[in-house]
């Protein structure tokens, strides 16, 4: 089964006629995702790849039941897109958009508390349940159906890990890219809790990086969980005080170091890979018992 999405999940694409939106809508369709509608203001009535386009999320939701929405709009209108999806109470909102201001995310986080929706991202590759449905931008062909769950703060690093796993015949259940921003809709810990309940997932790979304290939180929780897990943290050799690429990855005032995260996992008896290449072997060892 995996978590969050299945073959049957009905998907809306916000920003479907844009360059990224249309490219990835097509790629998702190819993967088998049930895209049932798209939204672009002033393009209502058009069709793209046979999918009807609406002017507003409201119109799209009146046309058909929507289970999930994926957002491809530019950073300056992402707040609007997410609020629009929240207003219609869409259960799963996946926001690919990079560069959303923190102030907008503060507002979104507060509204999320008052809703039943789950936001994955922003600045993330999305969610994929291997062989079933892809609501995201990850290259679908590297995934293989299986029992390894993946939670990652980094997009491209996820692909790296997934392709390693697939090459070693370690298939995946669901892969969730939670996004690399300092403020994100759903944290490591929240996704771990979803995987705990999933009978298809035998082990979860956590791909973290420097900055913040999400990994430490997750580690603490895993100490008393039955979920098998393996962690990898990027940025062990990154200098302090410098933002590595996006606002989330920074060692500031001595906090957020890779070492402290690795220590936290070790304290909780969670296996840690120091090098990506070790991951497949470590998984095989962990799943043998």
């Amino acid at each position, binding site marked *: 089964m995996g978590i969050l999405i299945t073959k049957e999940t009905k998907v809306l694409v916000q920003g479907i006629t844009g360059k990224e939106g249309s490219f990835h809508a097509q790629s998702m369709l190819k993967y088998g995702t049930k895209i049932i509608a798209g939204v672009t203001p002033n393009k209502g009535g058009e069709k793209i790849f046979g999918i009807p386009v609406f002017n507003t999320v409201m119109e799209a939701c009146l046309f058909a039941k929507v289970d999930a929405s994926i957002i491809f709009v530019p950073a300056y209108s992402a707040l609007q897109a997410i609020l629009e999806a929240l207003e219609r109470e869409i259960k799963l909102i996946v926001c690919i958009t990079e560069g959303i201001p*923190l*102030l907008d*995310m503060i507002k979104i*986080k507060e509204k999320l508390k008052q809703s039943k929706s789950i936001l994955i991202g922003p600045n993330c590759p999305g969610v994929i349940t291997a062989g079933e449905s892809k609501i995201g931008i990850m290259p679908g062909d590297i995934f293989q159906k299986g029992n390894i769950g993946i939670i*990652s703060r980094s*997009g*491209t*690093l996820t692909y790296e890990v997934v392709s390693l796993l697939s090459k070693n015949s370690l298939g995946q259940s669901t892969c969730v890219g939670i996004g690399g921003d300092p403020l994100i809709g759903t944290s490591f810990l929240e996704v771990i809790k979803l995987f705990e309940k999933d009978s298809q997932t035998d082990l979860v790979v956590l791909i973290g990086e420097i900055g913040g304290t999400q990994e430490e939180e997750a580690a603490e929780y895993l100490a008393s969980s039955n979920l098998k897990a393996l962690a990898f943290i990027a940025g062990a050799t990154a200098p302090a005080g410098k933002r590595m*690429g996006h606002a989330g990855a920074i060692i500031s005032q001595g906090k957020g170091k890779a070492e402290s995260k690795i220590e936290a996992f070790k304290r909780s008896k969670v296996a840690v890979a120091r090098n*990506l290449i070790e991951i497949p072997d470590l998984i095989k060892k962990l799943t043998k018992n």
Partner: protein
Amino acid sequence: MFLLEYLAKGILRKSGISISKGGLAEKLNQAQNIAQKLKFPLILKAQVLSGGRGKLGAIKKADNLILLKEEFSALLGMKLADETVNKILIEEAQNILQEFYLSIVLDRVCAKYCLIFSPSGGMEIEEIAEKFPKNLFKVYLDPFLGLQDYQINQIIFNFHLPNQIQKPLRKIILTLNQIIKDYEAVLVEINPLALIKNGSFMALDAKIDLDENAFFRHSELLKLKIKAESDKLERKAREKNLAYVKLNGDIGIIGNGAGLVMATLDAVNMAGGHPANFLDLGGGAKEDLVKEALELILKDRKIKGIFFNIFGGITRCDEVARGIIKASGILKMKKPIVIRLSGTNESLGKELLKEAHFYPVDTMFEGAKKIVELVNC
């Protein structure tokens, strides 16, 4: 984006918070001109982002022009962690009655701003927290309502602050809150916030961290963005919207995605190499950006080779390949380049590269090993 002290203090002054009289000097004669308009003793402060400047010897005092010259010359060009001192702030020294700590900072865990105050300022916040935990007071700001008067009351009365400093302190707290809003800052810190002779406050040091993602709403901050970068190449990268961080090694690294680039640095380090930089193209880079990124890191003369590591999701391998080919003119130097391309449109990208006689490797580890070999031979 962290601002250097003089830029942060500029924002404070503009907002109505007092700072010491002074000026910024990059050369000795500038320093001497500034000093002539000020009252000795003067303080010389290296403008770098690294913390603990006092302990690192990057803050000096001068009682006269001769000593000023001496200290200035000693500071200029000094190396502190990854930074080189090329700007020095010269300010009048102040008589301090008491040092306070005051900041508003975004707390990532609860997604709220947090106002932190302590009557034990002058040392770093971690030190206060450790040595005087009871002297640290935090209030969290409601995401929608923001800072409330009653919260300022909680601070003032928690520390039994005397009547005559309540009003000026309240004003400074409200000003800090306004700076957070006006500039969409992630952090504004005054430490020490000094109570000086005449019973009023002065910000003797300041730290401001701005949210670059919000700059599209603050066009006036773009100038600040460029100014804030001490390294020339970092400045250039900012102009092109590339995430570039200068490091101390000799292998240029380009990749897409912060996590992947960080992992690439880690891999190169593990293979025995020394990365010269971190350069993240971001998501969905187009061929021109790829070309510009290559041109940019090649300006670093220390570079002996380049490792180009792409795993395409929203980024398409063909675009990357075209960018590399476009830049091949400048690449046709003696410096080796190792390319790794995987993901979206991988086969198309690889084909293009092969046509242009570039032969990509298959994995990050292979690539890391290969570039280290090539550079070290």
